[in-house]
């Protein structure tokens, strides 16, 4: 045993063995670098935040699309999907109004479908599990004996992270305000004053 150890610590006696030891040391260094690099990339906080952002945005898009989709031939399933996409107060409102709403849709015999044109998060509180998003959605309503009508709607929603993922906790249409001309740049009244 001792002579084997000696051969290792006195590599000058065996150049091939010396080369092998040197290569091993190099490989060890590379492995250490690789392991550290992998750990740093896996443990990256920005990446985790980015993934959370993507999940919340995806939930916002899916939720808005779901809540603008309803087929009178399959109302029960549609409204169940609505409830599954929501949480908190919004979910409670949908549950409370469900019966009445089902009757209305079945009577009107409408088929509503939706397409999300664009969406983006405007805020994300990862720790609290809350997010806010704006969604531009195009809805098409097919009613019997009528031409399908298409409408573009601006929606603003809030999301909460639940055990089942991100869900809509609030959803509203963005109203047209009269902010234009009051605080905006180039307000007409100010310009006319310069004449």
């Amino acid at each position: 045993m001792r002579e084997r150890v000696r051969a290792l610590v006195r590599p000058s006696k065996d150049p091939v063995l010396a080369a092998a030891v040197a290569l091993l040391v190099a490989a060890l260094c590379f492995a250490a670098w690789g392991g550290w690099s992998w750990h740093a990339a896996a443990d990256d906080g920005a990446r985790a935040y980015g993934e959370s952002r993507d999940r919340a945005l995806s939930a916002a898009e899916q939720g808005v699309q779901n809540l603008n989709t309803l087929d009178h031939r399959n109302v029960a399933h549609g409204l169940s999907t609505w409830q599954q996409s929501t949480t908190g107060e919004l979910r409670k409102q949908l549950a409370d109004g469900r019966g009445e709403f089902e009757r209305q849709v079945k009577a009107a015999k409408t088929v509503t479908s939706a397409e999300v044109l664009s969406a983006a998060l405007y805020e994300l509180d990862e720790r609290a599990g809350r997010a806010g998003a704006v969604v531009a959605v195009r809805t098409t309503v097919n009613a019997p004996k009528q031409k399908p009508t298409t409408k573009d709607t601006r929606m603003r929603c809030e999301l909460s992270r639940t055990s089942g993922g991100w869900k809509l906790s609030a959803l509203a249409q963005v109203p047209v305000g009269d902010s234009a001309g009051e605080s905006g740049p180039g307000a007409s009244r100010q310009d006319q004053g310069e004449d």
Partner: protein
Amino acid sequence: MSTTRHLLNRQRRLAARTAEPDTAENPPEESPPGPRPSARRTPHAPKQVDREDAEQRAQPDPARARRHRNRVLAALVLLTVLLGAFAGWAGARAGELRGTEAVRNSALTDTARTSEVKGKVTEAVNALFSYDHTAPQKNRDAAGHLLTGPAVAQHARLLDGLRKQGEKQKLVLTTTVTDAAVERISSADGRDRARVLVFADQRSTRTGAAGKANSTAAEDGSAYAGAMLAVEAIRTGASWRINRIDTFD
């Protein structure tokens, strides 16, 4: 052949035999002295003759030494290959993780950049979609220093009707952004690019002849509308320019 060693070995074996009668080895060791093959050691052999024993064994058996050395070499090579393979795999995995969509898109994760983009795009949209018939050049100037690429033609097309009729109708259009959310900020071809969804309030006032006939006008003679558009911006130097306008038509 060393007689000293031979004598020492014989002494050792005799001593061992008297101290421990139950050895695994058989009597053939006690045969007449002569050149010895590799001696078998008894468990209680005294330590000071170990080294001589070892040397005696090593010298006449270079084949065995080479076999040991080759095994060590093989072990070193195997270890090197395994560590190298791990290094390669770990490095590749790290690269994969860094290249994921979640990392490449820095919207919201880079709060400073997100604010910057949001602010610049808000200012730009307000300026690009506001028009005053008393100062039509302002809008053209804004287009000149805020637009690039396909957005130049897109903007011209969107404001075409407005520019043609604006003077006659004494039109004043004011656009004010109410919501702007950054969907994406990423780097491509060495330049930063961003995509922003914008909601804006638009107020148009026509005080010319055609305007008075507008039955849907509010009390102050203005019409209000809500606009939505997605813009793509690209960083040129220290400022951002809009290079694509999408009105979802």
